[in-house]
């Protein structure tokens, strides 16, 4: 991992050029330009609000019913909680999907030029995170409009969460892109897995509903029980998104135990992904 990191740092000028090009290319030829960074998550928000809040009646509990949830469950607040989750998830999912295919997509460069392929996952990650930052002020604006909370010192957690999210994404993308260079099925698997993973992560519903699934399903259908709480225990994205929601919407510090778990997951991802990428790096020009 360290050798990859050194190489990325050595090629930082190129990395910057790639990020700039990518940010520009998002909006080259589009009339609304950077507004899309805002419009896209907001439209998503309306769709999911409609489905989960109006149709499925997901409720972010009444005050006090969930000790880990600080809100009151009002519609405005629900919308902001969802929006914070959507922004973080969209950045993550976009990088995962593009990153998995990044080596294949840039085969032209890798096969023909001496090209540091290790900058590809970082550049995609940085680009998507910058894109996410453009959408983030809307959440804060919403908080000011819809609640009496005011952004405070807790926003200092934002850079920390950004760095962690980026590191986790980069590690995962190193792994997936290397695997995809060998077996192209990985890209298709990731397409499906992203959807499953998104709905397995409490973005559009409160984590409490999953944690309580044991009781709620145990009722109506007699002995049929389906405990699902373990999903939250193994899902790093839940730890991350829960932290984002607390920091951005409720202006609270994140739950440090979740942050700690996420740090462990990030380190693991970087070590494993970095090792797989580094071991196969030399054969990429021959593989693609």
């Amino acid at each position, binding site marked *: 991992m360290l050798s990859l990191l050194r190489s990325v740092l050595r090629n930082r000028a190129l990395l910057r050029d790639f990020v700039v090009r990518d940010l*520009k290319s998002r909006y080259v030829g589009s009339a609304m330009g950077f507004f899309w960074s805002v419009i896209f998550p907001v439209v998503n928000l309306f769709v999911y609000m409609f489905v989960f809040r109006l149709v499925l009646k997901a409720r972010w509990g009444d005050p006090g019913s969930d000790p880990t949830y600080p809100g009151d469950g009002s519609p405005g607040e629900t919308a902001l909680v969802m929006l914070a989750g959507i922004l973080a998830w969209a950045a993550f999912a976009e990088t995962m999907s593009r990153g998995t295919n990044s080596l294949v997509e840039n085969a032209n460069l890798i096969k023909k030029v001496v090209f540091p392929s290790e900058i590809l996952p970082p550049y995609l990650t940085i680009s998507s995170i910058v894109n996410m930052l453009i959408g983030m002020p809307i959440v804060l604006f919403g908080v000011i409009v819809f609640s009496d909370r005011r952004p405070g010192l807790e926003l200092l957690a934002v850079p920390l969460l950004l760095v962690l999210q980026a590191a986790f994404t980069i590690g995962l993308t190193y792994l997936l892109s290397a695997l995809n260079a060998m077996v192209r099925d990985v890209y298709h698997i990731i397409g499906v897995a992203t959807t499953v993973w998104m709905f397995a992560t409490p973005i559009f519903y409160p984590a409490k509903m999953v944690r309580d699934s044991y009781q709620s399903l145990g009722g109506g259908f007699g002995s049929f029980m389906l405990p699902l709480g373990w999903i939250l225990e193994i899902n790093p994205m839940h730890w991350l998104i829960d932290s984002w929601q607390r920091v951005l919407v409720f202006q609270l510090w994140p739950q440090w135990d979740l942050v700690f778990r996420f740090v462990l997951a990030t380190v693991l991802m970087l070590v494993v992904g970095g090792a797989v990428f580094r071991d196969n790096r030399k054969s990429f020009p021959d593989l693609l």
Partner: protein
Amino acid sequence: MSETSSAVPANASSAAAASRSGSEQAIVADGVSKCYRLYQKPMHRLLDSLHIGGPRYREFWALREVYLDVRKGATVGVIGENGAGKSTLLKLLSGVSSPTTGSVQVNGRVTSLIELGAGFHPEFSGIENIGLACSILGMLPDEIAEKTPQIVEFSELGDFIHRPVKDYSSGMYVRLGFAVATCVEPDILLVDEALSVGDEHFRGKCMRRLNEFAEGGGTTLFVSHDLGAVKQMCEHVVLVHEGRVVEQGPAERVADAYLKRVKMRGNDGLSFAARAGGDYPQWGSGEIAVESVELIGPGGQAARVFSSGEQFTVQTRYRVQGAVREPVFGVGIYRSDGTYVNGSNHEWRAQPIQLTGLEPGETGTVEMIVGSLPLLQGEYYISTFLYDHGHPTPVAIDHRERVVVFQVVDELHRQHGMVTLESDWRVRRELAGGEVCELESQS
């Protein structure tokens, strides 16, 4: 093949290569081999890379034991047939791909013209792409800013430089690519027959640029199977065959060895006539069948590779199966790209040969003999036309497209293009002193 190859390599001692790897050398390849792992299924590659289970690949050695020693400022040519390993060699020397065994040492910045336009983003303008492409080639921001105007000027794109690259014609694309690749001011330039692109004007400019580069002390490695160009540009030539360097030395000698090799191989196992017919269209009423079409060289032997200026005979063997009024055999010669080079038959002549009264059961041969083959280097093919001219318009009896393919090599390489033109040259110099000096060269 391997017996001949192991005997030849010139300066093949690794110790020697190592001791000379000082600053005099631009490229030193020391016993370089490249093995590709071929997997039957992608899954096998994945399992292998994760060290699950034993190796599942088949080895393919694209290059074996290559020793190469290129002096700074030299222009070295690499020739060889398709699939001989030329491109693999370039990839190893440019550092894109890493050798399986042995080592490559390169002193200086390498650019290769294999990569013309690699990494251009279609949505961005030419200018923006120049910046990024230079950055990919390892240039620093101020260097890029300094070079950009030169690149723009060389590419001759005019206002198009501000339009997205997706609007470019392929020629414009390549022009921009070439401009970028050579403005980087490399120490070593790897050229992979990229110059067959663009119009005459731009190609000339490219050649000038390459010459300037060589004269300015740059090292060039030129890969091609255009022998003429290689002979013109390089003093030293390396011949690669089936992944091995089988010959290296002065351009003339190696180029001749290469031609000999191509000829020998091409004429291998052609002792009997190729059967007519095959994958290409043929039609006709069938009263006379063309049984075989054979090409015969000066020694009376069947051949598929000829030298320019050699005797060249097309022999058609026929069998009559039904009555025909007035059959005429014709031969068409085409270049591999379909250009119609020549068509003739035995009737359209000052002294036509008339074939009448052919009876079923008769067989025979028709020969077209070209005393001195005027074709120049390249691949050509022959179609045969057997038509009945006893009708107001000729009727096809047996028309066969692309019956035989043959190659022409041109050792002398005194003319370019498709055909030799016998010509005299005359120069008349009117000297400043009023004297007149005439020079003449007759064919």
